[in-house]
């Protein structure tokens, strides 16, 4: 396989992310005990793992690597990397500890994985580099105060072409420019996919690029137009965006579609279940369950909206709306936190179970004033509580 044959063996042989590659090496060279870790965040197939292996080689370090989603608990992590964290070699050689896919770690506090990594970073005698695919994962957020994030992105097409041409030259292959550009475009930043296409051209020159994927707009419009679940499922499997973007885009398209209230209500109910399923998948990293997500959308959502004129809308809210949502959510969390302290419950249960009732009751000014005094809330909260309370009471009466 050319993917193996032409795997980069030195840092300069990679393409894309030049700054990140140089920054990682500079960080490794300057690393001292007590320094933060590094977390590389970026989509799969962009070369994060290759970079770490080559950076260790560049800095003449040993490498201990571990896919964190295979060792999700503290016990397993201690067993696999405990020694590397606490020891140095007799001759002072450093060992680079690499934890891949940390967004696959269990977020559950009782498993202790995240806490172990945090402690390990503080006390480690060797540098620790982590990698994650999902920038928004809880685990990445939890590690952000003790790890410097470095963003990894797909290389631009011209650099992909340059890399492909270097292979073509070594293989003394002749590929028309148009065909190569088509391969580059279709590979969407995935070097392995590009190399495979070039290799398959050598084997079957007449065969064009077989594309099993469609842009989001095209695939989701086919999904919305589908008149049966099978067609809807096939359309969803062809979407190139992430599952999170997929659910959000479907949501945005549905709420902006002007559907009659009953259909809209049914659709939102299905989307709410899809969102919960997606949350479970992201937490458990059980990616095989993604097929059930598509199944749920295809079987139930498509039945409610299929052929009713819903069209794709890009998942996007204007900045002022985003800002308002962020601010409101910050206030909600703060109210739940203070309420939890007063009632000796957890902030989580206050947010999940009590907040809704509190906001509903805030439709009553007397209650609202008492809550503000009782929780010692600052000035800006009165307006927020009045607005939320009014909305909930009005929503209830309709």
């Amino acid at each position, binding site marked *: 396989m050319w993917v193996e044959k032409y795997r980069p063996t030195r840092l*300069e042989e990679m393409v894309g992310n*030049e700054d990140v590659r140089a920054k990682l090496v500079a960080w490794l060279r300057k690393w001292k005990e007590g320094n933060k870790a590094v977390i590389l965040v970026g989509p799969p197939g962009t070369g994060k793992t290759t970079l770490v292996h080559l950076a260790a080689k560049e800095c003449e370090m040993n490498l201990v690597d571990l896919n964190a989603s295979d060792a999700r608990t503290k016990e397993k992590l201690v067993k696999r990397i405990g020694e590397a964290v606490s020891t140095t070699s007799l001759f002072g050689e450093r060992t680079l500890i690499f934890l891949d896919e940390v967004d696959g770690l269990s977020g559950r506090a009782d498993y202790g994985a995240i806490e172990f990594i945090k402690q390990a970073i503080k006390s480690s005698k060797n540098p620790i580099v982590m990698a994650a695919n999902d920038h928004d994962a809880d685990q990445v957020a939890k590690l952000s105060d003790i790890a410097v994030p470095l963003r990894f992105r797909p290389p631009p097409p*011209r*650099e992909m072409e340059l890399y492909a041409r270097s292979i073509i030259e070594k293989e003394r292959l002749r590929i028309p420019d148009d065909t190569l550009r088509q391969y580059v475009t279709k590979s969407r930043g995935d070097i392995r996919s590009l190399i495979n296409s070039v290799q398959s051209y050598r084997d079957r020159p007449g065969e064009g690029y077989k594309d099993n994927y469609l842009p989001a707009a095209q695939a989701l419009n086919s999904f919305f137009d589908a008149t049966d679940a099978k067609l809807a499922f096939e359309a969803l499997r062809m979407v190139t965006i992430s599952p999170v973007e997929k659910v959000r885009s479907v949501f945005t398209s549905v709420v902006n579609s002007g559907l009659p209230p009953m259909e809209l209500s049914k659709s939102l109910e299905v989307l709410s279940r899809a969102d919960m399923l997606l949350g479970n998948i992201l937490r458990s990293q059980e990616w095989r369950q993604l097929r059930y997500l598509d199944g749920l959308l295809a079987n139930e959502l498509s039945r409610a909206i299929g052929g009713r004129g819903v069209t794709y809308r890009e998942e996007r809210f204007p900045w002022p709306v985003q800002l308002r949502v962020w601010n409101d959510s910050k206030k909600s969390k703060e109210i739940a936190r203070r309420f939890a302290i007063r009632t000796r419950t957890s902030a989580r249960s206050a947010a999940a179970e009590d907040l809704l009732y509190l906001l509903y009751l805030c439709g009553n000014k007397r209650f609202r004033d008492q809550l503000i005094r009782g929780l010692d809330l600052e000035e800006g909260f009165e307006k927020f509580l009045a607005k939320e309370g009014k909305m909930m009471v009005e929503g209830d009466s309709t």
Partner: protein
Amino acid sequence: MRILVGSWFELPSLGRETFLALMKLGVRYEKGMGFKFDSDTSIEAAVRLLQDALAEEVRLSLRCYVCGVEACSACAYLEHCDRRRVSPLCLCEKHATGEGGYETYMHTFRNNLI
């Protein structure tokens, strides 16, 4: 508005909240120089924010990693390249298609590393 990733650019006053949001998204700011997108910037989100704040389209161009010139003009991938999502340096026509391009690229990286 056109932004060359990795170069300083100016913005009209967009208010404190927008400024703070840009900083949170990793946009660099230096008094006297202006703003800059680099590899630490959440470029996609920053572009969305600027488009909303300025109420105009924001177009990105990338610089050549080897010689630093604007690399996107006359690029065959201009229509297909999502410059908000790809890594923020590219190659100009000369260094992408010229003879020994890959060797020059590797040599530049090695020099920058030392």
